[in-house]
């Protein structure tokens, strides 16, 4: 089982959600985050003084999938989160040791 974490632009949420549901994920978790990579921040201005804000709002999307789903999910993410402009984000894949469903106590791939 793998956890796929994607940092994406916030306005892309609906598109990404639809694409992931289409390839058959069981669920997802979304967190509002701040960050920067190559895309630097904005400059705000208050009473003539500039305020550099390095961090930009992003969304962190996490899904846990079975190993055989990984490629399809990554494809779906790459397509739906893409704009071609700087700041589109990144995808991280990490191994998951165990998954447990709280309601039924199921473990392993059946709980994904």
């Amino acid at each position, binding site marked *: 089982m793998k956890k796929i974490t994607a940092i994406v632009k916030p306005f892309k949420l609906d598109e990404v959600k639809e694409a992931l549901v289409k390839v058959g994920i069981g669920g997802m978790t979304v967190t509002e985050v701040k960050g920067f990579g190559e895309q630097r921040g904005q400059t705000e*201005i*208050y*009473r*003539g*003084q500039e*305020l550099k804000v390095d961090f930009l709002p992003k969304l962190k999307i996490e899904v846990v999938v079975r190993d055989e789903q990984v490629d399809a999910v990554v494809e779906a993410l790459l397509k739906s989160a893409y704009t071609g402009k700087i700041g589109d984000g990144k995808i991280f894949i990490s191994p998951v040791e165990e998954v447990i469903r709280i309601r039924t106590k199921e473990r392993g791939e059946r709980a994904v």
Partner: protein
Amino acid sequence: MKGVVLSLMVMLVFSGYALAEGPAPTPKLDSGDTAWLLISTALVFLMTVPGLALFYGGLAKKKDVLNTLAMSLTSYALVSVLWVLYGYSLAFNEDVSGVIGKTTKFLLSGVGMESLNNTIPEFLFVAFQLTFAAITVALISGSFIERIKFSAWIVFAVLWFTLVYVPVAHWVWGGGFLAKLGALDFAGGTVVHINAGIAGLVGALFLGKRKEPYLKPHNLTLVALGTGLLWFGWIGFNAGSAVASNSLAAIALLNTNTATAVAALTWLFTEWVFSGKPTVLGFCSGAVAGLVAITPAAGFVNVSGSIIIGLLAGFVPYFMIAKVKPALGYDDALDVFGIHGVAGIIGAFLTGILADPSVNPTGKGLLFGNPSQLWIQLLSVVVVLIYDLLVTAIILLGIKVTMGLRSYEEEEIAGLDLSHHGERAYDLE
């Protein structure tokens, strides 16, 4: 000497001075005047609660918004009590040597249901003037936000009101020596705005810079709301200062509106040119600067004069704040000096130039053949400035060495809302 003082007093009594001070020659109550002043009192109240509170609150950082509100709210409440206790008497009672009023009206003793101030009940005059005193104190807090200790603020508010506001109000409005000299201040450019501006500046210097010494408004929509309430309430502040329901009140209203609109647009366009973008904060700041600058002039100038005042009020304070303040490096957090002090000074001088006797026969400026008025205005500003500076410094020093003035660094970092009040303003995700 006695002859000069006596003739000045006689001149004063018969000059129909715009703001009535003390016992007046006209004994009859006018219900039109009274109705208007009742409303004006409510309008000026609204300027502090919650006008200024929200204007300042929105400009503060999120973790300090409640503390910022608290300083305005407590200012109003404290002054409300102290005014009836002793403030009114010392400011507006019968004059003693041009310096202060008699103490005989403490707790409004001697003021009864039949007591009049010109054509309005004296009780109403008490209430109306109370709102002016309260907002002056509240204005100062803008310089102190995000770092002053709350207990220090309360003590400062009481002492400053007592030792600075009350005497100055007496000198300019209560029949004191600046009134006798003929200084023109229709609704409080000097008594309220220059006064608060200087005190704010001195306080900013004593407090020192914040750990985060930059303006990061956490809610500009509150600032816009506050600006609206201030502009609305200022109709009572300026037009109410005619202390009558007449054409003087009307011209004061119109002048106020004109100068403010001009100043707001001037700041907006100035900022557009010099900073690159027209900001809502700039519009609001310009509006407030215009409101301040027209305050001493509202019942003395004509509409052309109010346009000139608006232009300068929208232009000069912007540069004070955007260029001079960062160059000098003092942390007047919400620009109490930059806006109220500077625009107040501009207004005071322009009143001395533009006062049109066809608007108000008691005010004749340089442009209308009375160059000495400008010197009188200058003297009035300088006297108040020096007195305010000295006494405010003494008060702050006293607080600093006894109970301490500033919050601890951890308190400042965590935010004064949590540290001093144990409260969180927002419970949003």
